[in-house]
């Protein structure tokens, strides 16, 4: 699906103008940590059911949302990614019983902490998507991509090499 196709998609709520196809719109790079049992299956279902969602996410499959260490999220932002989504099973459905419960507490503190430091709240988002919610997965990805597009690229955390020699 070429990226220009989906741009012409109707988005309800804020009726975005049919953005001119050739304008080089900012294409965010978003890392999505998907829990293997629910969200990854949900993404799979979204694909099988031909739901269309923006191609900006790079999926990393993890055993459980509890496996996500804040270190990975900060490493993603440090490596030049514009947004991070962590998606796991709904509380109660976790294959490992309490993985997402622990994760929920960690994410709650991390979200508030990054916001407090001055990073836009939309940068790092968390969601619950079960294996049967293909449409919900597509909608969440749509929302996350719209958010990141709205707030623009994420430059001030990105590591760059200064190639100036010495002093």
């Amino acid at each position, binding site marked *: 699906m070429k990226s220009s196709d989906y741009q012409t998609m109707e988005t309800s709520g804020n009726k975005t103008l049919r953005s001119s196809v050739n304008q080089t719109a900012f294409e965010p790079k978003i890392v999505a940590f998907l829990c293997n049992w629910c969200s990854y299956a949900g993404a799979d279902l979204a694909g099988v059911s031909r739901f269309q969602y923006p191609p900006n996410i790079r999926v990393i499959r993890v055993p459980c949302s509890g496996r996500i260490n804040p270190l990975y999220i900060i490493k993603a932002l440090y490596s*030049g990614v514009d947004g991070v989504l962590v998606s796991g099973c709904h509380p109660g459905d976790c294959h490992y019983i309490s993985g997402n419960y622990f994760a929920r507490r960690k994410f709650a503190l991390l979200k508030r902490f990054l916001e407090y430091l001055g990073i836009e709240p939309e940068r790092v988002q968390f969601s619950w998507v079960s294996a049967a919610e293909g449409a919900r997965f597509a909608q969440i990805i749509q929302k996350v991509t719209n958010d990141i597009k709205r707030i623009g690229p994420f430059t001030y955390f990105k*590591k*760059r*090499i*200064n*190639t*100036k*020699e*010495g*002093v």
Partner: protein
Amino acid sequence: MTKDKRTDFILEKNRFEEFIRSLSEKYRIYSPSYTDTRGHFIEVDSPDKIKFNQTNSKLAVKSFFFPQVENLFVFDAETKELSDKENETTAHPIQHILFGVRPCDAFSISLLDAVFMKISPADPYYIKKRHSTMIISLACNHPRQTCFCTSVGCQPDSEKGADIIFFDLEDRFLIRPVTDTAEEILNSVRTLLGSATDCDQEKKKQLMLESKNIIHKDFEFDDLVKKLDNFNASYWNRIYEKCLGCGICTYLCPTCHCFDIADEVIESNGRRVRTWDSCMFSLFTLHASGHNPRPTQKERMRQRIMHKFNYAPKNYDQIFCVGCGRCIMYCPVNLDIRQLIKGIMEEE
């Protein structure tokens, strides 16, 4: 012109700004910044930024010649080609002037010269900066309680490592050129300078005598090198316990020169970078096999003392400590190197 024939000059304080402005036409002037708490040497655009009453800067002047992060070379990550713009011109004309360096820091630069320049193979990055920089040091009239330079063979008016030394005689400066390059530069601003009278010299001697009395000389270093040869002495078991193993004493020390070399690649460009490292860190000597010759803080503290007071005298026949007191002032647990040395000297 041999050293003793060099005449001392006088610069009135009201003509100081003119002196700096005329120098800044040809050279870039740096002086320790006391505003932002990094306290290292920054470029000064206007003379009034230069202060005299502050004692020593927080980061030593070593960070100008041997910066915390320095590119060794840059390469393209895909093709792995080095960007070798070999502009290895051996002659580096003077471009930078460091003003307000304290004599102990200037002394430490002469020690770093021994490591990076005198012992072959010489370090090209250090040489480039060292030859293109002139050091104007400012003698200390009011040393701090933590200063102990007189105990390590340095003086509040030591000229080692400096090109020109300024003595602050309250209303005027007495300027003593030390090296030949100093002569040329002073000649270029000769009109501003008067020549020093005997009463100026007398005042300078008086000020320096006072300053030396302030520094209490509470231990001697005469046979410390021999005493430290006793590697497994018992005092090593007692002096390391309170050390947290952080890097403050080594990063702020003007003579510490240990460094790490690491590669970084981000997208298409990569670089090999040299950064400061500290023997107090636990991973400093960890082998890939997991073996670590210095496993606990005892060995690391012993290495820091031995490197400065036993190994350096054997390799460079100089004690690698200038008595600036930074490691005493900024240690989170107030671990005082003078106490360590006194404890070692008192060992029978």
